[in-house]
């Protein structure tokens, strides 16, 4: 009898534990650190959030490690950058995780690109002769703070949908984030105002949205085509162009080899800036605001030094 009673008590406890668990924090997994930072801004202490890729990692080439399946298995919400940025690794993780909540099309799957302004949507025929092109547009959209705001708003709405009692909280957190971002943006715009129209060369075309917002003019890439490593002829062309047009700044993502950029720098006297495309690219860059603080700090210093 005693055993049966204990069993029943345990069963009741187990059943009680289910609603208790659901009152816990929403478990959010994002593909990149930037989305994690934005989700954290609006989710506050009502969510726990973790990113699959690290901020200093090339988001095109993340490995679909089984340890990520463990994260995805527990997730209530998966937020992806979309536009095929994660096509090499996210689909198998989603298929294998055995979590119905985060399957594509389920309420717990959010493609953040739907909220953002997308640039470089190819028109007309595209082929791989153009390199590793993204047929749906440039996926590096989070580098425009206006898109950060739009994505945060979308995430806040989605969190409210998944956790209705807290939707007011998420909206309030978004309003607060919006206010802080607007103030920060004014400051960033002010710092960059002097340098609008400056010509730069970048390694990969990750900086389209950033350049649009801050008025930089990207005139060339060190990669001859997206995803194709630098070739000697292309490097010579870039050096000639930089000399001719007096271009003094190169922007390099932290996951690319600095050998070619450094040798171009030696030839042209241009500065090589390791600019961060993502939160967490350096230890001190812990949130969405610090990302722009860091990048704009580097840029203004370089532009000031190379009048």
């Amino acid at each position: 009898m005693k055993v049966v009673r204990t069993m029943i008590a345990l069963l009741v406890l187990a059943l009680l534990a289910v609603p208790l668990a659901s009152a816990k924090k929403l478990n959010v997994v994002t593909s990149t650190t930037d989305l994690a930072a934005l989700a954290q801004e609006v989710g506050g202490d009502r969510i726990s959030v973790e990113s699959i890729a690290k901020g200093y990692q090339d988001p095109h080439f993340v490995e679909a490690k089984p340890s990520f399946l463990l994260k995805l298995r527990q997730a209530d919400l998966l937020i992806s950058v979309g536009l095929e940025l994660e096509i090499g690794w996210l689909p198998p993780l989603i298929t294998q995780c055995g979590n119905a909540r985060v399957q594509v099309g389920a309420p717990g799957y959010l493609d953040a690109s739907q909220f953002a302004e997308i640039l470089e949507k190819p028109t007309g025929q595209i082929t791989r002769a153009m390199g590793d092109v993204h047929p749906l547009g440039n996926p590096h959209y989070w580098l425009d703070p206006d898109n950060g705001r739009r994505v945060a708003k979308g995430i806040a709405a989605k969190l409210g949908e998944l956790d209705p009692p807290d939707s007011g909280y998420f909206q309030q957190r978004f309003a607060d984030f919006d206010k802080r971002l607007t103030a920060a943006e004014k400051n960033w715009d002010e710092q960059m105002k002097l340098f609008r129209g400056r010509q730069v060369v970048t390694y990969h075309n990750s900086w389209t949205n950033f350049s649009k917002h801050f008025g930089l003019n990207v005139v060339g890439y060190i990669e001859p085509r997206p995803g194709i490593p630098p070739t000697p002829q292309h490097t010579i062309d870039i050096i000639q162009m930089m000399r001719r047009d007096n271009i003094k700044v190169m922007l390099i993502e932290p996951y690319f080899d600095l050998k070619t950029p450094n040798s171009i720098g030696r030839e042209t006297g241009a500065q090589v800036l390791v600019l961060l495309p993502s939160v967490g690219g350096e230890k001190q860059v812990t949130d969405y605001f610090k990302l722009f603080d860091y990048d704009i700090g580097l840029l203004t210093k370089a532009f000031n030094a190379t009048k």
Partner: protein
Amino acid sequence: MPYRHWGVAFLIFILVAIAPAARAQQSQDDRIKALEERIIALEGQVRMLKAQQQPAAPAPATPEVAAAPVASAAGQAGALPVYGGASAAAKALNPDISVIGDFLGSMGHNPMLPTPAFQMHESEVGLQAIIDPYARGDFFLSFGEEGVNLEEGYITLTALPAGFVVRGGKMRAAFGKVNTLHNHVLPWADRPLVTNSLVGGEDGIDDAGLSVTRILPAPKGLFLEATGQVFRGDSADVFSSSQRSDVSAIAHLRGYRDLTESTNLDIGASYARGHNDLGSRFLTQLYGVDATLRWKPLRRSIYHSFVGRGEFIWSQRQQLPRLQRSFGFYTSGDYQLGRRWFAGARYDRSDRSRDDALTDSGASLVLTYWPSEFSQLRGQYRLTRYAEHFDAHEFLMQLQFSLGAHGAHPF
């Protein structure tokens, strides 16, 4: 004094006049901004609709192009039928299509394995799509020199309760590592001796049946996954079924752990059991252990990496006059020298499944060059020391190229 009054009056006039103008300017800016936001939100919704395969727009490129003529000559443009509209919507439902070509050249002398000088070894067509909210489908048709073969074709149920993932159809069995891999993702131009001698060679254990996988509860940081599979029982020369009850079964347990951010260890144990070509009363059982050590520094992940792997397989084949107990293994290492270059080496050794007294061994050196993510050129020097006491020195040249949808990178 009147001046002061005039001055004050003038100031007030200016303020009264300018304020609404400035406010109007401000509100106009706000309105434009609000409109911009709405356009961006709408564009996003259109993209989502297209991705969800609903006929949102007649054709992907037309909206922007069509906007101008509609505005200038609305009557004419509006009256014209939109050709191809239906087909564009239908196309959105098409699966992702990819083709991978595998061209192989061989040099040297090998009477045991007389492959031709040149062959279009395999052309693999992949068709993949999400079927509905509960499942996805994957088809891989391989066109070889002799004909077409359904390499894999299965449905994966992704939305089952309790974390189960179920597959049904024809698939490569979860026995070890190499058996699960398609030719084009192998780090070599061929398959190891142990695969050829004990696990059915290139086709491997690839059969029609059902598969159930689940991630098991484990201490934090450890990934444990169990797979159970039941097949019809026909796989190359390993299993063959002469009646319905001659099904084969496969069990696989996989453990994985991140040792550091850049290094991880993947270990598996496999078991397979089925009936062999001698009939329903003769069983073949296979036991396997595999281990893979990977290193890839995240900051330089596209430039350097190392994969070391090994697979050990024991085969017990019931036949007359006695049970054959064969053992075989391979170990290999592949180092990425730069963004486009990989170098590797492999050591092979295996008994033959039908005669455990015969043992072959071999070694290979491999160099692979990737012009881009979508093509690769590989050279492999292969030495095979056959049990019949002769050595085969061969040079294999492989050219692989992929068309169409960007597939996932294997792990």
